[in-house]
């Protein structure tokens, strides 16, 4: 059954940063140069072709944008400067918004003012909530930062964190399920045995923690920085979610705080490096920045900064009041980042990337299986 071409898709993806895709005249250079482009996933040319022709169904079920780690070699070699690297990036943004069933992600990507307004709103609500809690229900008072009578009791924050975690996990989970449905579920032609899901499941943690595919790029530094950022973030998440007591305790528990400081340095260092890269626009993958990239990085720096500030204020200068205020401010950054950025914006790729590796491996296996079956069926015919 023929697929209907739709010329409007290109216009839509311009909001997501795909300005130059129309220039591509399909010389095939990018796919041949790309270090990741291998059977059966040849990209970026094919994906750009689907975008140019407006084959929305095909693009939605296409995992290839997630297999691209924007090493930028294709954009350097493109004779028409059609920026294949940036186009794949824009497709990732578009897919993120399409996986999200609420439509919030689409709103964020299409107007950064809306995203900023949402973040500020949530921040203010959080701030008010925590202040209210601190003064009215928490039982503690502003002067005490940790321990007995603390302004923001560890237990409450802990509960809040977990509730927030579950909410964002729910949203993210549904979006991931949609991702599965668009790429594998809906595709009748590919039958993937349930056993395969288990067999390949090891890929999820492997790619989540090592991003080893990013390492296959020619230039290794982007992978190292990204890995540092990723590990620091995960460390901080684990500390906050599971060792909040240690983190929030009065005396310094080096077992926890040590990791905490390390993670913060990692977070601050990498995000500032990324910010500087995007400002100087020298490396190919930093040349084009979508508004969501800026918001995401600034928020990250803010949260990490306020996190370390409150710790220093309390542990070094023992200024409990200031520490508490910064703590609230810190939470005003954390909630929008976790509540909004993770499920609805750039941060969602922490789930989508490993899943994409996982699903694409399943697809690849199924395709190879099908080809073997076809070949096998073909061969035994009488000569």
């Amino acid at each position, binding site marked *: 059954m023929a697929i209907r071409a739709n010329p409007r898709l290109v216009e839509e993806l311009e909001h997501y940063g795909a300005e130059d895709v129309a220039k591509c005249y*399909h*010389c*095939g*250079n990018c*796919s*041949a*140069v790309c270090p990741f482009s291998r059977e059966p996933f040849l990209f970026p*040319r094919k994906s750009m072709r689907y975008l140019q022709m407006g084959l929305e169904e095909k693009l939605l079920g296409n995992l290839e944008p997630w297999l691209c780690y924007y090493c930028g070699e294709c954009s350097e070699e493109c*004779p028409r400067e059609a920026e294949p690297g940036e186009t794949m990036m824009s497709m990732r943004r578009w897919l993120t918004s399409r996986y999200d069933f609420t439509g919030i992600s689409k709103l964020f990507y299409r107007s950064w003012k809306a995203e900023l307004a949402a973040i500020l709103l949530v921040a203010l609500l959080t701030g008010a909530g925590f202040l209210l809690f601190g003064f009215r229900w928490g039982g503690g008072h502003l002067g005490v930062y940790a321990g007995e009578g603390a302004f923001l009791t560890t237990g409450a924050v802990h509960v809040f964190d977990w509730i927030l975690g579950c909410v964002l996990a729910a949203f993210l989970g549904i979006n991931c399920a949609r991702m599965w449905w668009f790429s594998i579920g809906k595709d009748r032609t590919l039958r993937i045995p349930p056993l395969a899901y288990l067999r390949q499941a090891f890929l999820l943690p492997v790619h989540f923690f090592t991003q080893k595919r990013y390492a296959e790029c020619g230039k290794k530094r982007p992978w190292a920085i990204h890995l540092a950022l990723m590990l620091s973030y995960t460390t901080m998440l684990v500390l906050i979610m599971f060792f909040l007591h240690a983190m929030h305790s009065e005396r310094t528990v080096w077992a926890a705080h040590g990791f905490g400081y390390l993670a913060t340095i990692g977070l601050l260092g990498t995000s500032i490096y990324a910010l500087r890269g995007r400002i100087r626009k020298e490396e190919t993958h930093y040349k084009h920045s979508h508004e969501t990239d800026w918001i995401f990085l600034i928020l990250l720096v803010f949260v990490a900064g306020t996190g370390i500030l409150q710790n220093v204020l309390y542990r070094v200068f023992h200024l409990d009041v200031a520490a508490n205020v910064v703590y609230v401010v810190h939470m005003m950054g954390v909630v929008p980042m976790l509540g909004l950025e993770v499920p609805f914006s750039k941060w969602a790729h922490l789930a989508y990337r490993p899943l994409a590796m996982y699903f694409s491996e399943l697809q690849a296996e199924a395709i190879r299986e099908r080809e073997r079956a076809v070949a096998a069926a073909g061969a035994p015919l009488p000569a």
Partner: protein
Amino acid sequence: MGVPKKIGVYFCQKEAALPMPVDWDAVAEYARGLPGVAHVEVRSPRPAPDPEVLAHEIKKRDLKVVVVAGDSPGHFKPAFTRAVALAGGEPTEVRLASFRQHGAGADDGTERAKAVVACAVHGVPFGLAASPRPTAVNPATLVIGGGVAGIQAALEIADAGQKVYLVEKTGTIGGHMAMFDKTFPTLDCAACILTPKMVAVGQHEKIDLMTYAEVQDVAGEPGAYRVKVLKKARFVDPDACVACHACMEVCPVAVPSEFDGGITTRKAIYMPFPQAVPNAYLVDAAACTYILSGGKKCGACLRKCAKELIHFDDRDEVVEIEVGSIVVATGYDVFDARRIERYGYGVHPNVLTALEFERLTNASGPTGGAIVMKTLRRNKRTKQDEWVFDAEGPRPGSVAIVHCVGSRDKKYNPYCSRVCCMYSLKFAHLVKEKLPDAVCYEFYIDMRAFGKGYEEFFERIRLEEVFVVRGRSAKVVEKDGRMTIKGEDILKDRLVEFPVDMVLLSVGLEPACASDRLAGILGIDRDEDGWFRETDYNIDPTGTERGGIHVAGVCQGPKDIPDAVAQASAVAARVLKSVVSGRGQGSRASLTVEEIESRARALAGA
């Protein structure tokens, strides 16, 4: 002139286009003063004109005629035409005032733009009103460049009995065509077409052939140019030398031969190729040890020349000639494949450029036409191993041909070099003809076989089982010891990696290296890609802004031999027309705005 026409002049500019040196406000101000002009508007590039809105404006202002002015107003004509139609007006009353088409590129752009607008307002074609003043014309003609276009123009003019000076930078006429063996699409041999014409030029009593010479300076005005030509010393009298090769045999110096595209060497005293015209030797001052040592060393050839024709005391001389017209036919240079590292030219020995392969397959080439891979050989003089072509060398089992090397690429040459598709198909044919069992791949983006008999030639190549792969090859890499070419085969939707023995890079064409200096000397300008700019792409592809100076062949833009020859004859027509009628064409720049405007007004009245 009837009721005063209500004319609207709209200045429209495309965004992101590199603007012409025109002061729009001055031109708009000037336009307001023209008769019948009721409304002048300089529109900003964004938003693009919307026909419905325009229709409303035109109706409101009751404009009968609309003039769309700008660098290339054609982009907006359909919008204005539809607007006028919607407003109930007469669509044929939408006129264009194109600054680009009518040469507002030079520094007097604003004056020229005013004249263009004036003619449009009067409804008179710009060419008519701005036809340059006739000038007396010296019947002699200077042709710069001895390639096929220069030869054709010189012959055509001289055969009509007029005097021609032919100046050629290298030691012989023939240009790039002389290097080719077979030419597409009929595969007839280039020498059979070119050599008789070269002989005719050499023997023609009306043609004064000056080889190893360059134009140094051009003074005077259209119809009477005084040209200084630097005739570099050849050190051998071209008329007396009978090319007995004695001097060449004893000359110890070997340098890469330009004619052979550097795949073989020639001596310091050399003849570019056996059928050269003039058929005589010359000395390469930059390579001759005798000259470099100030006469102390070597001099072997002096003693060997039986007719003592070698005079090392020859000096460059400057000759002054007077001509009425100048024909520029300086051809092109080939793109330097070294600039794209990923093809490995210069790294892998058997990655050749198109010109090198032309020489390799040429019957009078180093291997007598046999297609061979390079072999490693120790050079006795320089004591190093070097890759050379040896007639008995190994035959390649597989050859890959890559199109668009350096062309259709914003980082090198954005334009299409027009001839590479066809000569690449020819190469594929030569490979299959000379090496029947060799595998031949051809990587292309668009197979541009547009000329007479070109498509049939492309079909024939396909029948000879050449693997024609849609998708320009990306890179040449070394993989387990063999040269491998990587690319994407778009039709079969797969990545391909073919191990190949030889890669041919279909390099594109670039303006000749000295063409910017020559443009300065002649006072003509070049377009954004560096080719000489013609007066009008469609109806005057060989004229230039300066009267009496014409361009022909590839120096005006990449084209194949039939088109270059046709242009050369067209230029001959222009020259003969002015010589036969005794009325040359002055430069259009010498006409003032008032002159053009008054002539347009008169013509409009008639």
